[in-house]
């Protein structure tokens, strides 16, 4: 508007007096209008009736089938058949007063909701079940302070604990991460920063290696370190097997995260004259820090829960062993696996308790990963933003001071129009 008015007034300044610029507000009818505001979203009462009716019809029909007619048994079958009958009833109910397209929409929404509910319920239930069965063992304090050196399967739960496998898990995890994280990060930086035919080849091999089943990594370490180099089942062998398992995962995740760093940031750094390694160290890695932390923590969560490689390489023991190079070293998943093979009730309770402790460790790692890595590259927390703003203000003040003291610093020559012009 503004520009048009100016052009017109420049062309014919005197002949066309212009009205005062302003916004024309359309006249709205005042008072109660004939139209009512329509609801375009939300749930209608009919929908609720249809759903409730369909579920009632489904469960009642299946109930008749289960109790009166056929030799049907079992809760799971009941639930599944109820669900199928409910879907059919719901389709019939909706099609009474809706078009076919709307009917299909309702049915698919119902199916999608129930599928999501099944998956989430299953997860919650798996975790809840493990804790509820392990609770009997977990309430005793000795479960966390003793090992199993003198505990028999028949002993009461007030004797023996999983301390040796907690330390074993942590030691194995530490060594595995100590091998896999530096190697994985350097390899990911290599794949990202030094492109070429060779790095493409390395990437292909790494992607192929993510397909390596974990038990085969364990078998490899068993056949080399234990059978050929006679290391014996030990924490170190288990840690190397875990490192081989998680190395491709860490490299791949870190590679994906590094690719998310905006190219303009790197180009800006290089254009300012920074060398490549400074760009990597000061731009690439800090920007991708949260994502890299997530990659490492998810790798750690994977390593902590892997049973198969440890089964072949760590050996089984009830003793506390802090030396990773000599002697068997127990870890939590392996202990849970061996304990539940026993027919004794107390031993099975201990197994579930061990699995619960393992689950708690994984949950902790996962929460840490969410807290650190929930943000994309370059996204800051409120605290980080405040720190960044404070640094910016400091810079501004410093520059103002520098301008204010011309005796010490010669003022920069102001660029003239010719120099800056195109």
């Amino acid at each position, binding site marked *: 508007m503004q520009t048009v008015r100016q052009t017109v007034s420049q062309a014919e300044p005197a002949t066309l007096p212009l009205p005062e610029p302003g916004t024309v507000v359309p006249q709205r009818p005042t008072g109660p209008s004939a139209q009512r505001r329509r609801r375009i979203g939300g749930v209608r009462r009919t929908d609720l009736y249809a759903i409730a009716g369909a579920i009632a019809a489904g469960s009642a029909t299946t109930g008749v089938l289960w109790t009166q007619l056929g030799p049907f048994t079992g809760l799971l079958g009941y639930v599944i058949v109820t669900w199928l009958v409910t879907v059919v009833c719901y389709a019939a109910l909706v099609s009474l007063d809706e078009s076919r397209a709307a009917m299909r929409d309702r049915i698919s929404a119902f199916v*999608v909701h129930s599928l*999501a509910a099944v998956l989430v319920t299953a997860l919650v239930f798996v*975790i809840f079940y493990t804790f509820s069965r392990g609770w009997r063992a977990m309430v005793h304090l000795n479960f966390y302070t003793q090992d199993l050196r003198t505990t028999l399967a028949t002993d009461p739960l007030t004797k023996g604990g999983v301390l040796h496998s907690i330390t074993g898990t942590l030691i194995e995890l530490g060594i595995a991460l100590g091998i896999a994280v530096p*190697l994985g990060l350097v390899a990911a930086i290599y794949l990202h920063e*030094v492109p070429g035919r060779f790095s493409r080849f390395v990437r292909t091999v*790494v992607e192929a290696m993510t397909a390596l089943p974990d038990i085969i990594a364990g078998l490899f370490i068993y056949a080399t370190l234990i059978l050929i180099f006679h290391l014996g089942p030990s924490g170190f062998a288990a840690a190397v097997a875990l490192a081989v398992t998680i190395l491709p995962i860490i490299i791949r995740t870190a590679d994906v995260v590094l690719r998310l760093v905006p190219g303009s940031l790197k180009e800006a750094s290089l254009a300012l004259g920074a*060398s490549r390694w400074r760009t990597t160290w000061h731009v690439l890695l800090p920007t991708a820090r949260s994502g890299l932390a997530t990659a490492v923590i998810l790798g750690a969560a994977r390593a902590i829960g892997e*049973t198969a490689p440890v089964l072949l390489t760590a050996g089984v023991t009830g003793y506390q062993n802090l030396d990773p190079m000599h002697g068997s070293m127990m870890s939590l998943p392996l202990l849970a696996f061996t304990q*539940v093979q026993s027919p004794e009730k107390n031993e099975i309770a201990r197994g579930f308790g061990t699995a619960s402790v393992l689950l708690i460790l994984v949950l902790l790692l996962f929460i840490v990963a969410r807290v650190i890595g929930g943000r994309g590259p370059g996204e800051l927390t409120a605290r980080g933003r405040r720190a960044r703003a404070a640094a910016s203000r400091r810079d501004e003040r410093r520059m103002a001071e520098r301008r204010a003291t011309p005796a010490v610093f010669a003022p920069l020559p102001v660029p003239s129009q010719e120099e800056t012009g195109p």
Partner: protein
Amino acid sequence: MSQDLVAPPADAPAVRPARRKLVANAGPADKVYRGVARGGGSLVLVLMALVGTFLAYRAWEALSQAGLSFITTEQWNPDGGGFGIAAVIVGTVLIAIVSVVVAVPLAMGTALYISEYAPRWLKRTMIAMVDLMAAVPSVVFGLWGAFFLQWKIIDLSRWIADWFGWIPIFKVGGVERHDPLATMTAYTSSTFIAGVVVALMVAPIACSVMREAFGLAPMGEREGAYALGATRWGMIRSVVLPFGRGAVVGGTMLGLGRALGETIAVVMIISPRFEIQPRVLEHGTSSVSSLIALRYGEASPFGISALMAAGVALFVLTLLVNFVAAFVVSRSRSGAMSEA
């Protein structure tokens, strides 16, 4: 200035400036940096190549002795008699197929729910839960499967076997139809139960791949579908699902690869049986990784070679599945950036 703009005479030979050579003069620090990075990459390559060649070399010992019978033999007696992977590979593939059949609808439904139906506050929680599910150790799933699900699901197994037993794969040997006194152990430790437990482990992995692709479906096309009068499901069918088709296939394949290699949860549920057993509801089956986990301890050096040969066969299978997945995902539209 203006002289430069005069065109050269037509008959004059075109003079091209000599091409300049561009040399990036990396400082010593950068050379060291590149060297370290390249060294790290090479080390990883060497490590991976070492694993691969060692496995292949040791497996070759067993393979060269067994020859073609390695593929056709069902029993596993490396130190006497024959050994082969016919039974274990079939068992592995069947468990993986059952798990994918169960997991893909669950994963797809959950992915659609998260990307299309869930309210905003629930979305983040659901994403976190599904990711958490992918991090739950397999031994926990194995415990749940062996101690809880197994005894709840055998009723369903029996029901399927009773009513659909005329389909060969649902047949269960050794039990009478509708026999109220039949022992339930004919239905335990079956391919079906192992497959369902593995399905719960692979569903979150497939789900997160699908969810990301569904979320990237272009807004303009979604609104276009709505503007043309589509219902929400119509929009999903015409925009979201075609856009995410590659990710659906890719996520399924990724889950299949994971299901093929799963060890501990399978070991805790199945009871090993060395014959080709295609009846998924019947007691007893076997898989390559459970074979390795159960037999490595008492194996002779040659037995270890044989186990490695089985492992290499499994690795090749998983590798094929993963490469097909990567290929499908990279060819699909959701693999590239959307144009809208």
